[in-house]
């Protein structure tokens, strides 16, 4: 009986029908093993390929930084410094044998952009580590994100960002020390208190903004500690145009010390206004941001003489750490083309050092694990281009190294004079001291 449908019976299709001859079976077995071998070989090769690709994959480091907006004058040089570090590291073979890739976005000096930027860096760009943006206001919105994801953060010049959070994996490169608010101006007050006759009264003035508020809060504590009497304590909006009424109001109470905590435009405004109204305390300065910038220094010129102000680096012999000269040579070459601060003594070496410490910790811990890297940073001292750095419990420098410098003998507006020692004399701390204070303020202006 012809049963054509039996050809399509399940057994036939599955090969489970009548037994095949022994030779055919052996061929099938051989083919099967060949297939298994081929698959295994392919997988092994693919695996090796993946391994090779991973080893060549870059370690990604991401950050949002101010390239436009109010803080861009510092944000751009900071990014340039970190790019120099990346190039230096890659020239030496990268980290853990892998090249380093830097991914950055402009935060527009707008704290509202920070969560979005870092979410993109982590979720889309899949960065391995993050560095903060520049400045206290831009670090603040990053803190909750970092804490939630348990990230290690290297902060660039934030003041007291971790005081409330006490987040263990936060590290900050500004040398403010373990008590940032108080340490910030300690040197200024110590210098003032050592003078003879000792100044008695003080005026505190600062902008209504994050950094000046912290700096003034710290200064108030130091006023109590050193026994000065406050005769003026006021703040002003950052958009103030004319500072002569403020300088005149301070002059009216005749303080021995004027402590100013300001951002660059107000620093310039306060210095000019003080000269115009003849405000001549015995010691003037303290916490003025901007006087460290080359364009501001050259524009104010001799008006700077006598001002005692915080700083982070000066071209004095006491500050020549290994690698710093090479860094400035490269930075100053790139700065000319980018139209940013031509000397770059203030922020760039610290931005470089922040990345340098992160790199040293990745190499030292031989890991990309956030906790292991953070542990390594916490428990080691690092040799950087800004000197030896060790972090304390709150992620700040274990020991403060905020310098107090005095501008001395500045003549005209020539930029070259600021490249050599003697114009920004380091007065504090003693370890880095390069000269003596000229006191009172008016004596340095002659």
């Amino acid at each position: 009986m012809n049963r054509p449908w039996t050809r399509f019976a399940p057994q036939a299709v599955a090969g489970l029908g009548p037994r095949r001859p022994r030779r055919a079976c052996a061929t099938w077995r051989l083919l099967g093993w060949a297939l298994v071998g081929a698959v295994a070989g392919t997988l092994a090769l693919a695996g090796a390929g993946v391994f090779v690709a991973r080893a060549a994959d870059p370690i990604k480091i991401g950050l949002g930084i101010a390239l436009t907006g109010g803080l861009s004058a510092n944000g751009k040089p900071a990014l340039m410094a970190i790019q120099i570090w990346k190039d230096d590291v890659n020239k030496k073979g990268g980290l853990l044998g892998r090249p380093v890739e830097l991914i950055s976005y402009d935060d527009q000096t707008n704290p509202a952009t920070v969560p979005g930027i870092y979410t993109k860096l982590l979720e889309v760009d899949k960065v391995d580590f993050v560095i903060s943006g520049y400045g206290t206001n831009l670090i603040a919105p990053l803190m909750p994100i970092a804490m939630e994801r348990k990230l290690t953060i290297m902060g660039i010049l934030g003041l007291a960002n971790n005081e409330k959070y006490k987040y263990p994996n936060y590290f900050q490169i500004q040398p403010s020390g373990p008590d940032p608010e108080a340490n910030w101006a300690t040197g200024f007050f110590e210098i003032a208190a050592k003078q003879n006759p000792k100044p008695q009264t003080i005026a505190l003035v600062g902008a209504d903004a994050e950094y000046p508020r912290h700096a003034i809060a710290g200064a108030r504590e130091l006023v109590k500690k050193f026994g000065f009497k406050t005769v003026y304590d006021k703040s002003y909006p950052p958009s103030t145009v004319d500072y002569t009424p403020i300088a005149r109001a301070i002059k009216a109470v005749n303080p021995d010390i004027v402590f100013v905590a300001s951002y660059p435009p107000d620093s310039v405004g306060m210095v000019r206004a003080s000269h115009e109204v003849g405000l001549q305390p015995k010691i003037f300065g303290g916490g003025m941001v901007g006087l460290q910038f080359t364009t501001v220094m050259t524009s104010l010129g001799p008006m700077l003489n006598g001002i005692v102000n915080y700083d982070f680096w000066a071209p004095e012999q006491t500050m020549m750490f290994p690698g710093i000269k090479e860094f400035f040579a490269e930075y100053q070459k790139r700065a000319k083309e980018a139209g940013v601060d031509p000397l770059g003594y203030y922020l760039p070496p610290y931005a470089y050092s922040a990345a340098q410490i992160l790199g040293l910790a990745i190499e030292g811990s031989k890991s990309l694990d956030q906790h292991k890297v953070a542990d390594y940073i916490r428990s080691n001292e690092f040799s950087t281009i800004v000197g030896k750095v060790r972090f304390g419990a709150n992620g700040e420098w274990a020991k403060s190294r905020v310098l107090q410098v005095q501008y001395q003998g500045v003549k005209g507006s020539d930029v070259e004079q600021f490249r050599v020692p003697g114009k920004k004399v380091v007065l504090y701390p003693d370890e880095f001291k390069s000269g003596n204070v000229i006191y009172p303020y008016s004596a340095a202006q002659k």
Partner: protein
Amino acid sequence: MFSWDLLANAVVAGMLLGGFYAAVSLGVSLTFGLLDIVNIAHPAFVILGAYAAYVMNSSYGLDPILTGVLLTPVFYGLGAGVYRIYYASFERRGEESLRGLVFFFGLLFIIEVGLSLKYGVDYRLVEAAYIGRSIDLGGVGIAFRLLVPCVVGLLMTLALHLFLSRTFYGRAVMGVSQDQVALRLMGANPVRIKTIAFGIGIAAASLAGALLITISPVVPSTDRDYIGRVFAITVLGGLGSIGGTLVASIILGIAESLMATFFGPSWSLAVSFGILLLALAVRPAGLFGR
């Protein structure tokens, strides 16, 4: 802390500041007050003028204010060109309200970013013989850095007032602000008149920029500090009133200065805008508005 000496100094400093505010606000008074064009980019043109003064000062040692005056024809042409684009793209189609506003916002950002790309984001300052010097007149100190911009601001106000009240084109600008159809019936072309007026507004902004960089350092984003202030002054003075703009500027300048001297500078802006709200509650059209 009160003394008559301090009061006199505060009032004089406020008047000097007011003169400068008037210079910065005149262009807005012309474009927004008379032409009804919400030129949000006005402060960006001020900064553009400031950078022009900086370039000429740093490269050729030219006085910043002299540079500002010399470059006014260039900025006039730039302003006229911007208005033509605005007119062709928005005003002619009756889409000037919201889209026009977006246009000027875009222009503001383009200028800001363009300056950042070209000159970087470092603080820019100028040097001039009068910066950092002052004169004492019977116990009242006057800083030349503020006196010179104030005098130039007053001259600009006077010149604009005379232009609008005494010249054919000036009267035509006033006519445009009142009744464009009537102006057209008189045989004048409102678009041409508005082009001239807008060009003058931008030229005034550029000169104000030269004054600004004489007073304080600038970065491309400095314009944002002035957006609120210039529109507040224009509204307080009364839309389209050049004299009103000067008076409003001086009122705000003196208020800021008095607050900074006697009560704490952090209140100065709040009090200035409080005055604006109070004035508008009593006179909704502004101090000299119709």
